[in-house]
Structures are given as structure tokens and as C-alpha cells.
């Protein structure tokens, strides 16, 4: 789960990481009030969406007065912000964060991230702050300093010092930085975050370190034991259909095409999308109804797929293992009848009692085409989706 910058800054602050004073506004009036309550001087107005690259897209504005802050906020609120991370459709700005300006001497990068290969948390610091860290890693990897946190151990001060001295900082800044890095690690462990990133971590004109941005990702599997974190989720940030699917217990991701897919198992679901594309059609979604798909899940799956108006055909690909194909076929037929399905469908069944399953589908009188293999299913669905002869 991702959270907004303003939420991340709140968490960082509660873990002892310095952040600029600021406040959230949903309207221009609120923006004015927030701006008036902050220290006089320059202010920064920042659009709150779950995507990086906001500055380039017009989502960050530096102003000189509360009235200018209100004006900037009124322009930002409601606008569609397109950045390299939002996709071409962009995201609508519903909230702005207004904070006190910082006189920046230089910018660092600091992050704690789950390192899958090392199977532990990695702490990364770079003097090339304010830039895309992937780009820094690709072009100047010598500018990134990394260490790992041993399971059950803190980030020891010496580890943090080595990174910070590596960045060329003086001893006063190094000492501040050690505390900040240790706090980031503590935050990651306690709240079960797989990424805590500050970019930039600014060195101010007064030689202080302060977090000017914050990005935190949490482990979805751990949210049950962190209710205060789960509550930070912003429904406006996710696709409404994907949200509905989550509530139903389905793994659903909306894509751009017109061939709806329903598959049991995530790996097979991805592979099914891939074969559809290879056959010349475009998948409309990823949908995993679970390895042991039941009639109930199949019904829910249909409901979600059909809520996408782009869907012109549906490919069902089920590998019936423990769950028998005849049981599953009955489920598909019952769900299709219940929902009065009109969209043409190709069904590929494999596994236990597959013959009985196919007979149930054929006898149903519904608009099913049965495929015997992955390749055949893809070929048939591409034809159907293109409106070709069936």
C-alpha cells in the first residue's frame, strides 16, 4: 500500500525525522488559512497524488505569500496531473500540501528498502539527491552507498556513519544523519514498510538535515496488524473496479484491451494475458479467482469483468486440479445464466474430469466456445474479439 507525501511526512515526524512545518488543504480557502498559520517567508504548494515527477507536471509551486499560495492551490485542485508515473490518463488532484520553504544548500537521497536478493533491509544514501535514483544507479553507481540491516539487529551507528562520510558530509551533518537513518530503519521495522524514501533529504543553509519529500510503501500482508496504517489508504488513488474486486476477495488489475480474462492462479493468469497478446488481441484485465476457484468466485469474477465497458469477449482459462472441471463448469454455467451473459466466451478447461466439464458447457445452450489448449484458446478469442467468424 502507498500513502501520500503529507501522510509520509507525518509518520517521519513522529519517528523523529525533521520535516518542514505544513498543513493539508482541500480547498483554496483552507489553503489560505494553512498558509497564514505557517512561518512567514517562502511557501511550497504540492499536489498530493501517488506519483513521482510532480514538479515537472506543474504539481509543485514555490510562492511568496499566503494569498499566492491560495491562488496556486486553487489552480492545482481539480487539475489532472500527468507525470511519468501516472500513465497517460494522469491523476486528478484532490488535496494540496502547503509547507514552509527551505533554503537548500545541497540535496541528498536516503532510503530504507526491502532488498529481495539480500533478503533483508538495505539502507541507501546518495549525495545525488533530488534525482531519479534509478537513473543515478544506472549512470553513476559509485554515488550510491549501501549497507544492510542484519535481522534482529539495529542499524549500527558505524554503518550509518560509513554511508554519510561516503557522501562527503562533515561530522555535524553525519551525526544528524545517523539519527535520521536509524529512525528510518525503526519506522520500516515497526510499521512493516518495504520502502521508506526521502528524496531529497536537504542540507539547509544552516547546516541542518530536513526531509523535503517522503515516500512510504507498506507490506499489504502486514496491514492487519497495523490498523493506523491501513486507515491511511486513499480510495481515490485506486481504480474503482480494482477496489470493488479487492472487496470481493479477487485479484483484479485493469488493463487497456477488450478481452476479459478469468483464470485460476496468478502465474497462469499472467501467462493467459500474454498468449492473448501474442494471438493479436489485447487483454482487458488480469483476474485471478484463486487456485481452487469456486462457483461463488467465478460469479464475482464475471461481475467485475463485465463492469468494464471495454470488454467485448471473455476468455476463461481454468486448470482444474483439486477442484474438478465438471464442478467448475456447472459454476460457470450457473453464473452466466444468473447474470444473463451476452458477451461471447471462449472457455478452456484442463484437468480433473475435463470431458464431463466440456459436456456441461456444450449442453448449456450458452454462448460458449470450448478450447482444448492454451494456443487454441488464444487463437479463438482473438477471432471472437475481432468480431470474426466463430
Amino acid at each position, binding site marked *: 500500500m502507498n500513502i501520500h507525501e503529507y501522510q509520509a511526512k507525518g509518520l517521519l515526524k513522529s519517528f523523529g525525522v525533521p520535516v518542514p512545518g505544513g498543513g493539508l488543504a482541500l480547498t483554496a480557502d483552507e489553503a489560505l488559512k494553512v498558509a497564514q498559520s505557517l512561518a512567514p517567508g517562502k511557501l511550497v504548494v504540492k499536489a498530493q497524488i501517488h506519483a513521482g515527477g510532480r514538479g515537472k507536471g506543474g504539481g509543485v509551486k514555490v510562492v511568496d505569500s499566503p494569498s499566492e499560495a491560495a491562488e496556486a492551490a486553487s489552480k492545482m485542485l481539480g487539475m489532472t496531473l500527468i507525470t511519468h508515473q501516472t500513465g497517460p490518463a494522469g491523476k486528478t488532484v484532490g488535496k494540496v500540501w502547503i509547507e514552509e520553504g527551505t533554503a537548500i544548500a545541497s540535496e541528498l537521497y536516503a532510503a530504507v528498502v526491502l532488498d529481495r536478493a539480500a533478503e533483508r533491509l538495505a539502507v541507501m544514501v546518495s549525495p545525488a539527491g533530488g534525482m531519479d535514483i534509478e537513473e543515478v544507479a544506472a549512470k553513476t553507481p559509485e554515488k550510491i552507498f549501501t549497507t544492510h540491516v542484519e535481522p534482529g539487529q539495529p542499524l549500527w551507528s558505524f554503518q550509518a556513519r560509513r554511508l554519510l562520510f561516503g557522501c562527503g558530509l562533515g561530522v555535524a551533518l553525519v551525526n544528524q544523519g545517523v539519527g535520521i537513518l536509524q529512525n528510518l530503519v525503526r519506522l520500516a521495522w515497526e510499521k512493516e514498510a518495504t520502502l521508506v524514501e526521502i528524496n531529497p533529504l536537504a542540507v539547509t543553509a544552516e547546516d541542518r538535515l530536513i526531509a523535503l519529500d517522503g515516500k512510504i510503501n507498506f507490506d499489504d500482508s502486514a496491514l492487519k*496488524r497495523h490498523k493506523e496504517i491501513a486507515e491511511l489508504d486513499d480510495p481515490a488513488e485506486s481504480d474503482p473496479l480494482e477496489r470493488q474486486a479487492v472487496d470481493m476477495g479477487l485479484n483484479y488489475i485493469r488493463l487497456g484491451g477488450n478481452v476479459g480474462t478469468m483464470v485460476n492462479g496468478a502465474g497462469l493468469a499472467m501467462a493467459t494475458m500474454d498468449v492473448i497478446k501474442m494471438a493479436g488481441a489485447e487483454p482487458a484485465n488480469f483476474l485471478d479467482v484463486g487456485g481452487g476457484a469456486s462457483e461463488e468466485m467465478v460469479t464475482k469474477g464475471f461481475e467485475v469483468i463485465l463492469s468494464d465497458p471495454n470488454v467485448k469477449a471473455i476468455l476463461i482459462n481454468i486448470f482444474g486440479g483439486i477442484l474438478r472441471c465438471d464442478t467448475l463448469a456447472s459454476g460457470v454455467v450457473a453464473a452466466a445464466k444468473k447474470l444473463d451473459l451476452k458477451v461471447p466466451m471462449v472457455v478452456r478447461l484442463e484437468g480433473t474430469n475435463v470431458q464431463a466439464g466440456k459436456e456441461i458447457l456444450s449442453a448449456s445452450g450458452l454462448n460458449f466456445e470450448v478450447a482444448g489448449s492454451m494456443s487454441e484458446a488464444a487463437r479463438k478469442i482473438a477471432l471472437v474479439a475481432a468480431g470474426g467468424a466463430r
Partner: protein
Amino acid sequence: MSILVNKNSRVVVQGITGKEGMFHTEKMIEYGSPVVAGVTPGKAGQAVLGLPVFNTVAEAVKQTGADTSICFVPAAFAADAACEASDAGIKVVVVISEHIPVMDMIRVKAYLKARGTLMVGPNCPGVITPGECKLGIMPGYIHRPGSVGVISRSGTLTYEVVDQLTKAGLGQSTCIGIGGDPIIGLHFIDLLKMFADDPQTQAVALIGEIGGDAEERAAAYIKAHFQKPVFGFVAGLTAPPGKRMGHAGAIISGSKGRAEDKLAAMEAAGITVVKALGQFGATVAKSIGG
């Protein structure tokens, strides 16, 4: 020969009295797997499917000589269960449970490593040595004893591949679903090393998916060290970046973890890459004979 599990394994089921645990234990016994005991804290003295149930894994090991475990306990208790198995001296622990917090897995891995326990999973279908021991939730009947080792990050996708191999006349030595989470027990490379030493295994099917760089690392290992033919598939060519595709570990982060890069690494390592899943079994059969 085979790897990890065989007819001489002695299996204890952790969480045997739960719905999933009981259902799959019955299927494992039907298959002929050497299941000797179950564990559910507080249910010692009961018998489930004719098997004795113990309060602790240590007691099950002491009474039955169990050396292998399979965990069906809910995610919130699964990390604890894996560590309990390790502490009791279990050599191989298979964790089926999904949605185990990743910070738990960091701790579990350190705990198991210190005790020399091998773990498969979590969030996996398990391990099967066809004809000898089914330790998992996979449909047993699609497998045949034979010479192809199968390693996969997925569940039903593995069944699809195994089914194609069997239909193409190719049996399997051992099939391992390594799990779809970001941090897992045994990796591709650990298992490739075992397959390298297993005379029964003549070829390996490597089934990957988007996310992480396990496939790239496996490809580098294969290029440098692995002599037997390898056939590769990677799911998720059409997956968008930044979205978790069902499995917690299946996500393209920035430019990392893309299927294209994994396929390219496999090809560069001399692995026979199968792009159309429907052709997997036929491709292997054509190459090594069905």
C-alpha cells in the same frame, strides 16, 4: 533418485486439524505420501485420518521420527510454525500459507539458516516427487515419474507445464513450486545445484514470472555452472509496471523485474526459451525426446 522428498521421507503436517490441512492431508495420503503425524497445539491425543496428533513438532519428531514438514497454518502463525519445525530438527519444511508478512520472512530465514533447515515457499503449491511423495496441494495425477526437474514461482502455471510434459511423454523427477512472495526459502539456484547432483534429472524446466531478479541470477548460474539442458518460461510480458499481479512478489518496480529482461538473460545463458506457453511440452519433447 530425486530431490528434497521421496518415499523414505517422514512427513508431519502442521495445522492438520484445520479445514485446508485436513483436506490436503487426505489427498497426500491417497497419493501414497509417507505422512506419519500431525501437529495442532492443544489437540494432542486426537487421531486425524488415522494419524497421531501432537501439541508440538518436537513431540511429533520424538514419537514418529518425522524429518519433513508441511505447514497449512494461517499466515499470522506461519512464521512461528516454520521456526518451530526448524527448532525440532526438521530438515525440509514446506510452507503453503499465503500473505505472510515479509518482515516475518526475514526473521524466519535467519532462524532457519542458523539451524540448517531447508524451506520451500511460502505461498507455494509445494513439492512432489512423482510416484513417491506429494507434499503439497498440487493435483497428483497429472505427474509421472521421469527425468525432468521442474522449478516454478507459480501454482496452476506449474500444473499446466507438468500436464503438458506428461502428455508429451515426459515424466518428472521432482517438481517444486518455490512460491510467489518477495522473500522465499529455496531459490532457483539452490534447486539447480540439487538437480545437478541428481542422476535421475536429465533436464530442467524453469518457470519464472515478473518481479525481482531471481531468473536473471539463475540464468547467470546456469551459464557458468549447469550442464543439463534447461527450458525456460516467464509469465507477465503484458503486465503493467507498478502493479502487483496476484503474487506479492510479482511486480515490476521502475525498470526492474520485467519479463523481457528475464527472457533475454535466459537466452543469453543458452536456455531454450518457450514464449508461447501452449508449446512448452512439445518443445521439451522435441529437444530431449518424449
